[in-house]
């Protein structure tokens, strides 16, 4: 049988190889290395902080946050889950994973929210961004691990960069969606009173889109957690590494322990961030109010009454 391959053979792999090896790596490696610097700095700081913080203080802190935002049930769960992680001897790994996750999500937000806002404001930007997001979400993450290793090397930071690529799409999509879904007459009203584009964004669009953006942040966080094991393949540490080495040595116990640690961490973070997005379903709180309510004293719901009385 004749097939197209008899006529033309496309050496795609060679092309990609020469593109990456002979063009990207020699010419842009310093550039990609420089891109790592902020990630390295944030990660280093967070990692040092979480490892310095005594286990009990951290547990108390996170339990309080869970109680303030998501209620008593989640707080109790947080307390027990963190104690359990400590008891199975994975505290240090969990802290490493947590600092990796927070770093990834932070950079996803820094890149994703402005990009989402931009694509909400311009159909042309969305037209370009959307297929890129589709590719990012469908391409198997193993495919981009290779060039990442070639460009960034191995270690924690390349792991985080792989995680950012994997976890970025939902926050861009949902920021875009949230801003596009702000009621047209509110936009019109803001415009009729002479708002500039920035005032419109800051006073109307962003606060009203905040719930959707928080949902995007939650999704991004969950995706980042699911990348933990894959990132361990290229040298990232933490719970992912525990699972990965367990796999390599057929140590089912260690793999299970690491897996449970990831799941528990995921549940805690998911519940807390979800409730941040859902809280005060009617009056979307500003970012500042959200942050303040996390640290304010008193039971959840109190600040809503206090806000009304003020």
């Amino acid at each position, binding site marked *: 049988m004749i097939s197209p391959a008899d006529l033309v053979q496309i050496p795609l792999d060679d092309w990609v190889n020469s593109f990456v090896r002979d063009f990207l790596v020699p010419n842009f490696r310093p550039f990609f290395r420089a891109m790592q610097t902020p990630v390295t700095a944030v990660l280093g700081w967070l990692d040092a902080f979480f490892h310095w913080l005594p286990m009990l203080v951290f547990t108390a802190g996170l339990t309080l946050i869970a109680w303030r935002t998501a209620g008593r049930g989640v707080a109790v769960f947080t307390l027990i889950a963190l104690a359990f992680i400590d008891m199975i001897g994975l505290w240090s790994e969990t802290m490493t994973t947590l600092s990796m996750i927070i770093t990834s999500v932070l950079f996803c937000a820094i890149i994703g929210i402005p990009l989402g806002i931009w694509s909400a404001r311009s159909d042309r930007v969305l037209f370009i961004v959307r297929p890129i997001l589709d590719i990012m979400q469908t391409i198997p993450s193993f495919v981009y691990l290779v060039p990442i290793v070639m460009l960034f090397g191995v270690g924690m930071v390349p792991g985080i960069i792989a995680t950012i690529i994997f976890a970025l799409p939902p926050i861009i999509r949902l920021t875009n969606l949230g801003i596009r879904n702000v*009621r047209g007459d509110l936009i019109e009203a803001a*415009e009729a*009173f*002479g708002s500039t584009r920035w005032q419109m964004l800051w006073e109307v669009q962003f606060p*009203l889109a905040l719930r959707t953006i928080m949902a995007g942040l939650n999704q991004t966080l969950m995706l980042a957690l699911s990348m933990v094991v894959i990132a361990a393949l290229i040298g990232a540490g933490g719970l992912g590494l525990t699972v990965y080495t367990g796999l390599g040595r057929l140590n089912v116990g260690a793999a299970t322990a690491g897996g449970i640690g990831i799941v528990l961490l995921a549940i805690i973070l998911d519940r807390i961030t979800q409730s941040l997005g859902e809280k005060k379903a009617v009056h979307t709180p500003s970012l500042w109010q959200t942050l303040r309510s996390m640290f304010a004293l008193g039971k959840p719901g109190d600040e809503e009454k206090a806000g009304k009385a003020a």
Partner: protein
Amino acid sequence: MKPKLRVENVYKIFGEHPEQALDGLKQNKTKIEIFEETGQTVGVQDVSFDVHEGEIFVVMGLSGSGKSTLVRTLNGLIPPTYGKILIDEDDVANCSAERLRKVRREKITMVFQHFALFPHKTVAENAAYGLKIKGEGAASRRAKALAALEQVGLAAYADSYPDELSGGMQQRVGLARGLATDPQILLMDEPFGALDPLIRREMQEELLHLQKKLKKTIIFITHDLNEALLLGDKIAIMKDGRFVQVGTAQEIVDNPADDYVAAFVGDIDRGRVFDAAHVAERPITVELGERNAAEKALDLMEEHNRNALYVVEEDRIAGLVTYQELAVAAREEGRTDLSEVLVTEVPTVSRDTPLNELYGAASAGYPIAVADKRGRLAGVIEPQAVFSQLSGEENEEAQPTTDETEASSAQKGERQ
């Protein structure tokens, strides 16, 4: 007087090739024909009008008539395709974004049909929105917002959220937001359209009441002719993106420009549209102290075919005499004094009293005195003039306006 807002030949054509639609309009094609041929939608075509300071200009039309598009061209939310919109010296239709923003911040605000309050801001923050955008300090904008809320009677709700208020209250907040920056022009896009009838009525009264104090220049959009007639100093009836008639309430009801307007006017409450001045006639009077006053009065009544006549004493209304009584008195006692048969309890109204408040006075059978501000007799209304005006049949003598025959024929035509 120079108009506050001047609109000159404004067109809004939606689509890529407005010039094609313009050609179509020149050939007197309809909106639908133009859309079928060129794919362009004509929103507003060749609209021109002036609004003077302190005037309420109402644009009335059904949905799809282009009235909402028109009002949005006035503050540049929808830039017109052709034409000029002058607010003082600024041409809103052709100016920089910067300039337009300045006009919106300082001169022109808007009240929306569905309130368009910001759900994440309190009532006071909503009212203060325009001030915040202008960059006013927190304390002064709160004070101004509270003052604006006070005007609409909602100061007590300053720290509530919009969704805690009823529809009517929300629209008051919308109005307060529009007033807080102290603009000269207020655009109101069917502001009471989403309210139930009782609340709507209340809001209309309140707007008129506020307007007496504030004297803003208001462009008011509505689909309700009764609302238009009640509020408008001047009313434009809009159809297919074009003004079919512009005039005062009385001109429009009295003299509809075409069948379309006549169809609308058919079932409105004429008693609310017309006022006493409209049906009043020049008074025929006798002076109380005049010599031969009684004879003169009888002669006058015979001459003008009246059965009662007003008697004045200097400028003051002294009362009225009826032909019957005067004649009886004259026959039985010979020459008589007017004051003996004078009816002093006479119905007196002012020039702007609406006709629907004259029913009681008219049913007494006496002519009604129309007094001017200083209490002088400015006119007299024959009772039958009130009812013939209400029924829409023109009383030829009572009509000061011209083109009466045309108007009455239009109305008769519509009745068939």
